[in-house]
């Protein structure tokens, strides 16, 4: 079903491709809805209170009610903003998040684009979101927004470096940037979390910072910067930025399962009868739960400590990881 890209072009093929993309968008949106619901529930339970539990049975319709509220709000575009940039910024922030999902292999047979440079595609696209955020901050014509935007760009750019470097260890062990081959290499050997534990930890921390989530959520610090770079956005444009963050959680968590936790691989031989997609989903949920758990636990990093941590701690550690992996590979 997925070698449709290698067939000659026809209008039917194009229609099928568009429908599949729409279906994936639908699945991602359902994921976002319930990720928001479960985040509120998990954080509530960790704070010894119930999360949302009134709207619908057990509060399941809460996100739908919130999204509906955001969609029917008045679309306020302040008078002195840079109109074109203001309108385009959420779109630039969101599109790479969705485009990344195309290269991730969800199971043996379910994958959308078998790109030989899948990892590079991922790293490149996730940098475009930073541009969207900067535009959102700049175009808002507001001091708080531009400060938030600058802080966010500085943070995301500096944590992007250890993020990419933590991939390098995995690439060295596999010899390829193709995500499917990385999973296949893990199926034969051990899951890469074991030899690359340092890389995994660095990815967890740097990924958290890339997503602008607590403890690195200075740019959107609700009580410090009055929502930072999206202070002037209301209604569905704000919903777009929120959507970007949660779709990125999806993309980042699925990349982590593919690279370090073995993708669709079952942990033990006797559990092979459970389909691969279920294993992918379970590992993915574990990582998403970890992100929520961290949000409930840690306080925010201080402004002066934030950049120092990236440049003076994470990057040397990531470099050390790469060098040790290279050393290991040449000696054995």
């Amino acid at each position, binding site marked *: 079903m997925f070698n449709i890209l290698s067939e000659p072009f026809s209008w039917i093929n194009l229609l099928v491709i568009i429908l599949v993309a729409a279906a994936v968008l639908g699945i991602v949106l359902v994921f976002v809805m319930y990720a928001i619901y479960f985040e509120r529930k*998990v954080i509530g339970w*960790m704070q*010894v209170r119930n999360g949302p539990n009134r709207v619908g049975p057990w509060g399941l319709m809460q996100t739908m009610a919130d999204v509906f509220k955001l969609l029917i709000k008045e679309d306020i575009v302040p008078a002195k903003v840079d109109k074109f940039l203001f309108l385009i910024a959420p779109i630039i922030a969101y599109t790479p998040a969705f485009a990344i999902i195309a290269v991730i292999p969800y199971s043996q047979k379910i994958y959308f684009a078998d790109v030989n440079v899948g990892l590079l595609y991922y790293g490149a696209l996730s940098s475009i979101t930073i541009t969207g955020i900067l535009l959102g901050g700049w175009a808002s014509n507001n001091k708080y927004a531009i400060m938030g935007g600058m802080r966010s760009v500085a943070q995301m750019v500096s944590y992007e470096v250890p993020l990419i470097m933590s991939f390098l260890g995995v690439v060295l062990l596999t010899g390829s940037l193709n995500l499917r081959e990385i999973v296949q290499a893990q199926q034969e050997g051990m899951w890469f979390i074991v030899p690359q534990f340092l890389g995994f930890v660095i990815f967890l921390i740097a990924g958290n910072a890339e997503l602008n989530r607590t403890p690195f959520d200075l740019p959107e610090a609700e009580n410090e910067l009055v929502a930072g770079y999206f202070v002037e956005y209301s209604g569905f444009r704000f919903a777009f930025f929120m959507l970007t963050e949660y779709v990125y959680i999806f993309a980042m968590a699925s990349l982590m399962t593919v690279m370090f936790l073995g993708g669709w691989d079952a942990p033990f031989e006797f559990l092979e009868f459970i389909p691969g997609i279920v294993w992918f989903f379970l590992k993915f949920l574990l990582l998403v739960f970890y992100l929520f758990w961290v949000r*409930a636990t*840690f306080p925010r990093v201080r402004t002066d400590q934030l950049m120092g941590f990236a440049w003076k701690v994470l990057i040397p550690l990531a470099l050390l990881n790469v060098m040790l992996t290279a050393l290991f590979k040449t000696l054995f």
Partner: protein
Amino acid sequence: MWGKGFFKGLSFTLKMLKEPKITSQYPDEPIIMPERYRGIHHFYPEKCIVCNQCVRVCPTGCISLVGKPNPDPEKKGKVIDTYDINFELCILCDLCTEVCPTESIVMTNNFELATYSRDNLAKDLKWLENNNTKVREENH
């Protein structure tokens, strides 16, 4: 070891997942108010002697009453004809119950009185007489 605090924090929040929740589930479980809680009033028309003290002492002037001569020609004094509490003004301060010599106006523990229309906030004699659940025991 550097970083030990991180794991302590994470294990603490994980343990908190199974603790019983401390929020009170209000609409599903009723709130039990203390014994002397000052809610909306209850009126005993047979005890009222129309002395007008509650009207005089009310700080917001929400009580208004009209008395009539005792229908029984033998007895002296007045009996109560109409008694209105304008609940938009009442601050539930309890002064009317303290000053009443016969304890005919007392308070109850009922506080769930939100309505959709202001018409329901003019409490008259009938309503106050019928509001006889959870009446406060001590009134002075």
